[in-house]
């Protein structure tokens, strides 16, 4: 907990020299990065470059071996801490404030859209059924799916499912939202509706970390773009700088490959 009190409130997420290994393979190399309140950070890079691993660390779905990660003033336990049975409490505290949207939506297929959204507020935040369902209805309206509350996820299109997933995360009133390739599993014509919801979140001032391959979207919404390669942050800066005059050769090569077609 090496956080100066004045840092809390402006810095939401702070990585300091974080390293992670899968056996001999190093997934994260000395990652140092901080995200401030209301900032939208977009991570780009080839697959396997560690960007998904990085944002999955923020809510503890991935653990790391060394370095420190502080999320909203709570120190994320390392692998060692968890092995000795510590850190569970900090982990739960962090997860309460951090929402996540996955590439494969991961909606609960045996529960209706309404139940998907209302379950966690009831079970984790202890809200009453009426309150949780009212909130869920409001969120569904916001993502344009009011009429689908009683359907099962399997009856919805991919774009609709992803919007439900966003609503489900928002129901926990998170301070930080993580998006792990939210549009990669969608048919091209459904991408827009999901990006629209994310744009709206940005205007409301949500702190977001987004992994995406939608470069045009990244340029449009990002306050800061981070290019990663081989588990390390190669270059970061405002979108205009990264996309128009990148400093690193690796960034340039990557962008020329993804922007060509």
């Amino acid at each position, binding site marked *: 907990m090496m956080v100066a009190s004045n840092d809390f409130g402006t810095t939401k997420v702070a990585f300091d020299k974080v390293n992670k290994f899968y056996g001999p393979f190093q997934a994260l190399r000395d990652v140092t990065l901080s995200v401030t309140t209301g900032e939208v950070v977009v991570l780009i890079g080839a697959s396997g470059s560690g960007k998904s691993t990085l944002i999955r660390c923020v809510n503890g779905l991935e653990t790391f071996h060394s370095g420190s990660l502080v999320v909203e003033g709570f120190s994320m336990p390392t692998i060692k801490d968890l092995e000795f049975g510590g850190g569970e409490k900090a982990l739960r505290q962090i997860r309460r404030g951090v929402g996540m949207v996955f590439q494969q939506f991961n909606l609960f297929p045996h529960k209706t859209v309404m139940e998907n959204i209302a379950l966690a507020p009831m079970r984790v935040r202890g809200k009453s059924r009426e309150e949780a369902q009212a909130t869920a209805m409001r969120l569904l309206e916001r993502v344009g799916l009011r009429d689908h509350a009683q359907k099962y996820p399997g009856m919805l299109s991919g774009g609709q499912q992803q919007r439900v997933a966003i609503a489900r*995360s928002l129901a926990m009133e998170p301070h930080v939202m993580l998006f792990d390739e939210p549009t990669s599993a969608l048919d091209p014509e459904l991408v827009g509706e999901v990006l629209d919801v994310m744009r709206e979140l940005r205007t409301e001032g949500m702190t977001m970390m987004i992994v995406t391959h939608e470069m045009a979207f990244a340029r449009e919404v990002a306050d800061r773009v981070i290019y990663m390669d081989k588990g390390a942050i190669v270059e970061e800066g405002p979108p205009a700088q990264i996309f128009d005059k990148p400093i690193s050769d690796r960034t340039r090569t990557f962008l020329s490959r993804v922007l060509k077609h």
Partner: protein
Amino acid sequence: MIIATLHSWARRNLFANLIDSILSILIVTALGWLLTVFLRWVIWDAYWQRIYESLRLFLVGQFPEDQTWRAWVALALLCTAVGAVLLPWSRRLGVAIWLIACGAAVFVLVPPGLDRWGGLLLSIMLTVVVSTASLPLGILFAFGRSSRNPSLRACCTGYIEVMRSVPLILVVYWIWITVPLFMPEVSISSLARGMIGYTVFNAAYVAEYVRSGLQAVPRGQREAARSLGMSNWTISTEIVLPQALRVVQPALVGNVLDVFNGATLVFIIGLMDFLRAGQLILVDPAASGQTNEVYLFMFAVYFVIGSAITFGSRRMEAHMHRSTR
């Protein structure tokens, strides 16, 4: 019209070419002959009076005659229980009614004494009690076996593997003998001990089915639940287990059928189940001529109950799928 359809069907399916035609003629002739012989025996030669006279022994064994109403009440309760889980309404309500109705059925049947249960009554009650008790036990062992705690995991794995590598009769017999050794001051009836032994045995099989279901739930489901801050308990009971049970539901109902058919083996501890009742009837010299009738009757009863269970399983599966699509 119908004849024309039949004709073209036969043409396409039975007599499409020379080999098909020869096979069809041979098989239809053989089946027809067998059926004729069989039906002639069933209708004219068989002495069904014997079954009718022994019906009581077949159905309830030594259950006191003036208490027969209890068996009828139990039957009604069991039908309610089965109906509750077959109807496509709230699963929770269905399970609750099942538990209450089955519990009530046991309660109604107990007063004359567990030792008096016999015949089909015993076979069915044994199946109901063992299947119902095995499920929660099996779920616990399945979670235990996939637990992160090594000692718990080792215990559960050991239990499951030991039970699965020994025969049912051995476990039932062993529990029957050892329970009185550990608790000499209380007398527990043979049937209760048999139920315990059978449950202990069957729970290991249920655990393996459930575990395969737990593994079938995609990792993303747990991750999504964890990212919403849910506790391990909520994740297990609300997210993972319901999906796992859906996957293995056909296997679990198949297991009920296995329990019903395996229930014949409890004769080893002196219980008179349906099959044993039939054998006892044949011991009577007066009935020894009716072996075929007795066995055919038992065959038919087992077949009807077995196929009813399979049919019920398919219905449950169908409306379970409807609710997730």
